[in-house]
């Protein structure tokens, strides 16, 4: 087993544990801490897959912006930030459904060929050339969606809306 494979397995285990902890802990602030670790861990996997630009993007957008945004969401909607969630209980049916979904997906992916395709690395400049060349419509679509979302978010949170 190569060191990269070992690192991937360790990072995958951390990703699953932190993701599960984020959904199971009762205090919302602790959830944000767990999800922050989850995002940083995924960015490490991106670096391992030689996608440094996406790793940095994950750190900046997810581990930075999204985590802080969620923290602000908790801050402005709760009187006491560290107050606990009311226990909702973990129903047997949702747990069973997610386990069944996982088993089905696992059966589907294990039926795929277990060969390792050739590892390809890219230059970051090649990605930017692609994004602003052939991938231009995607970037344009993203900018339009972001603009619409900005207008929608401002409309939702403005004062005096009935």
């Amino acid at each position, binding site marked *: 087993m190569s060191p990269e494979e070992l690192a991937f397995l360790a990072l995958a285990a951390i990703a699953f544990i932190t993701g599960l902890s984020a*959904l199971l802990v009762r205090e919302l602030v602790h959830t944000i801490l767990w999800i922050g670790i989850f995002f940083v861990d995924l960015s490490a996997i991106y670096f391992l897959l030689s996608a440094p630009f996406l790793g940095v993007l994950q750190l900046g957008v997810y581990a930075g912006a*999204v985590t802080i945004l969620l923290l602000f969401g908790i801050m402005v*909607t709760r009187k006491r930030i560290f107050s606990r969630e009311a226990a*909702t209980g973990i129903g047997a049916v949702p747990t069973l459904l997610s386990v069944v979904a996982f088993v089905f997906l696992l059966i589907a992916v294990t039926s795929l060929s277990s060969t*390792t*395709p050739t590892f390809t690395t890219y230059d970051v400049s090649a990605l930017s050339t*692609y994004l602003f060349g*052939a991938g231009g419509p995607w970037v344009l679509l*993203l900018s339009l969606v972001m603009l619409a979302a900005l207008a929608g978010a401002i409309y939702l949170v403005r004062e005096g809306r009935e």
Partner: protein
Amino acid sequence: MSGLTIPEFLALASALLALSIFGVLTRRNFILLLIAIEIGMNAAILNFIYFAAFPLCAGHSALSGQAIAVVTIGFAATEVAVGLAIVLALNRLKGTTNVAESTELKL
């Protein structure tokens, strides 16, 4: 990066997707729902990046996988921003972020 087979990698993405389904089905707080959806989106982004690093068919531009991952991260960030705006509006109207109490559209 060598020796990592396709099923090994996709098992992680499947586990994260199952985790996301579990979170969406069990949690009642809107912010926790957003977090569960984010975990699912990250599973999808992970697959795009994996298949960009290990392209299955030659000739097809494998860089499009990374490009779609960049765009998906942008979409996910946008989704969180709008989601939190909905959380704020919900909190102002109802005084809670519990989605089980938002039943206005029920017949």
